[in-house]
């Protein structure tokens, strides 16, 4: 048994749905139909698999952390999504969606980005498949992730700085949706996480299930069984759902780690924004709160609806860590294993490090969703080097 598909209204239990302007409803119907057809089409799957292996470098390995395992007194494995082309798991989804856009006859990809990883991945796929690309990015993120902004431009994408609201990922999504409303006939909205209106949460998850499928086999090989704990960071939740998908039917405990300043499940209540019904940080009147996190990729007040569902059923547990704990974990993995993680998966490691007593003697699989090159400049400032 793997993760369940949403019902015909795009719901995982009570969460999900499709709350969008009427202008976009027919586009979502068309997308759902096209995705279902493509996914059932062997030639589409073969083309995607070929790109994932020959272009993106899959399968990504699983690395056992010998030094850190000693220090933490557990057996720690890393699923190395940081080794994918463009440096994170985001490429899995983007290659799938870009191929789908091409198949649907669309000429232009629109995307939002927080840390810039999804933006870079989208710009990459657009360059490869000869599509135009326009990426919305909050002004705050443009500043703290200037290397990724330059990468996107180098790849031929247009980067539009978003100056409304909190000037971060939430507002980048708003502007990407506004662009899509105006250009729906020629543009394809390449959403970067397991969020948004149906079919996005389901489709993006499906493109990331490769992480969990590979990791399940790799764990069988290394451990002879499944790990005791599977842990991943959660902003929108795409890397987490990807790795959870491989273990949802096992005995593994599934842990999603949110930033304390953007803990939709930890601090939010159900709400509706960006096309979906899910846990959301909001005030008593329903105004969406601004998330505050050291990590631009997790700086989001909502969460994908399937995570809300997994939390409500108890199949996955969601914890949060502070920025300070993340800074510690970032350095810990760098020093002990020679791996500089992105700030996002450093959240997952921060939880593991904090819970070392609880995890003593257990096998733990962490999804290392991205590499830290993009964050080195920010960390230099934080650490006053």
């Amino acid at each position, binding site marked *: 048994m793997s993760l369940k598909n949403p019902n015909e209204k795009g719901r995982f239990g009570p969460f999900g749905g499709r*709350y969008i302007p009427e*202008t976009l409803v027919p586009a979502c119907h068309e997308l759902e139909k096209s995705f279902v057809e493509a996914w059932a089409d062997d030639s589409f799957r073969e083309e995607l698999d070929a790109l994932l292996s020959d272009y993106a470098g899959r399968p990504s390995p699983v690395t056992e952390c010998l030094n850190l395992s000693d220090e933490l007194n557990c057996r720690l494995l890393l699923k190395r999504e940081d080794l994918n082309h463009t440096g994170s798991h985001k490429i899995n989804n983007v290659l799938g969606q870009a191929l789908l856009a091409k198949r649907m006859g669309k000429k232009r990809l629109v995307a939002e980005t927080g840390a810039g990883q999804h933006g870079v991945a989208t710009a990459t796929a657009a360059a490869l498949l000869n599509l135009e690309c326009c990426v919305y990015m909050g002004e705050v993120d443009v500043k703290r992730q200037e290397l990724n902004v330059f990468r996107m431009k180098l790849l031929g994408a247009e980067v539009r700085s978003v100056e409304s609201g909190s000037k971060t990922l939430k507002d980048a999504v708003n502007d990407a949706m506004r662009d899509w*409303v105006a250009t729906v006939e020629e543009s394809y909205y390449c959403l970067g996480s397991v969020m948004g209106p149906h079919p996005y949460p389901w489709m993006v998850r499906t493109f990331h299930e490769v992480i969990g499928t590979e990791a399940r086999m790799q764990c069988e090989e290394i451990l002879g069984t499944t790990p005791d704990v599977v842990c991943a960071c959660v902003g929108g939740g795409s890397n987490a759902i990807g790795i959870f998908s491989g273990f949802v039917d096992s005995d593994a405990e599934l842990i999603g780690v949110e930033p304390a300043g953007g803990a939709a499940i930890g601090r939010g209540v159900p709400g*509706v*924004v960006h096309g979906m019904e899910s846990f959301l940080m909001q005030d008593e009147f329903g105004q969406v709160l601004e998330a505050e996190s050291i990590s631009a990729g997790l700086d989001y007040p909502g969460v994908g609806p399937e995570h809300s569902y997994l939390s409500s059923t108890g199949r996955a547990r969601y914890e949060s860590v502070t920025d300070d704990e993340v800074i510690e974990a970032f350095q810990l993995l760098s020093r002990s294993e020679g791996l500089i993680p992105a700030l996002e998966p450093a959240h997952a490691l921060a939880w593991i490090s904090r819970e070392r007593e609880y995890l003593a003697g257990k096998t733990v699989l962490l999804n290392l969703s991205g590499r830290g090159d993009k964050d080195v400049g920010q960390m230099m400032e934080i650490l006053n080097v």
Partner: protein
Amino acid sequence: MSENIQIESALRNRIDSGKKALVVYITGGLGDDWTQTMHSVIDAGADVVEIGIPFSDPVMDGPIIQMANDSSIGSGSTPVTILNDLREESPAAPLAVMTYYNLAYRMGHERFASSLALAGISGCILPDLPLEEFEIWSEAAVSSKIETILLAAPTTPDERLVQICARSSGFVYAVGLLGVTGMRSELADSAIEIASRLKNVTTKPVLVGVGIGSPEQAVKACEVSDGVIVGSAVVQEMINGSSPEKVGELVSTFRVALDKNC
């Protein structure tokens, strides 16, 4: 509490007299004198006033209404303060609120619907609540006698237009273009097209909104439609700090042009 006049009948009064209907959008809580602006807009000939209740993430709105939203929220407006302000008033035309679904969801469907009714509001527009998700809200709205106006877009297929018209009350909101609210230099061809397609399938009033920024554009849109909704042009005037009278003068240019040319 003001008298609860039905939106559809107010529009029909105008349309049946051979004229075109004019709905004006203003942002609730924008400036201390916003309720005066509402009265002034009605005096200037608006048949219905839409009161925007600001939301933090208005994906269907362009820069002008976003700015008005931020300014209103920044000055302390909440759905409760705006509805309380309205309870003090007795407007001479029916009101509809335009906001986003999360505000209704958060307050609770029934409580939100009944608080609209208590504030003397007759209608509600939730642009991010499409037909498929409409049922729960619709039940609460009907029991509080709130007319829910649904949007139809240029991308909506014909069979879906029929369903939207069947479920919409008050009027049918024809989105005039592919895009968010805001003024454009010319009226989009799609405004005429969507109005014609709607007029072919419904007897309910069909009003075109989004992209109606000048009296000339309003007149042109009314070649087919029963009327127009004017938002950003009016809100821009409010953002500029114009007095309620001055905003009313702008609205009367629309009223005069419609009465003279349609």
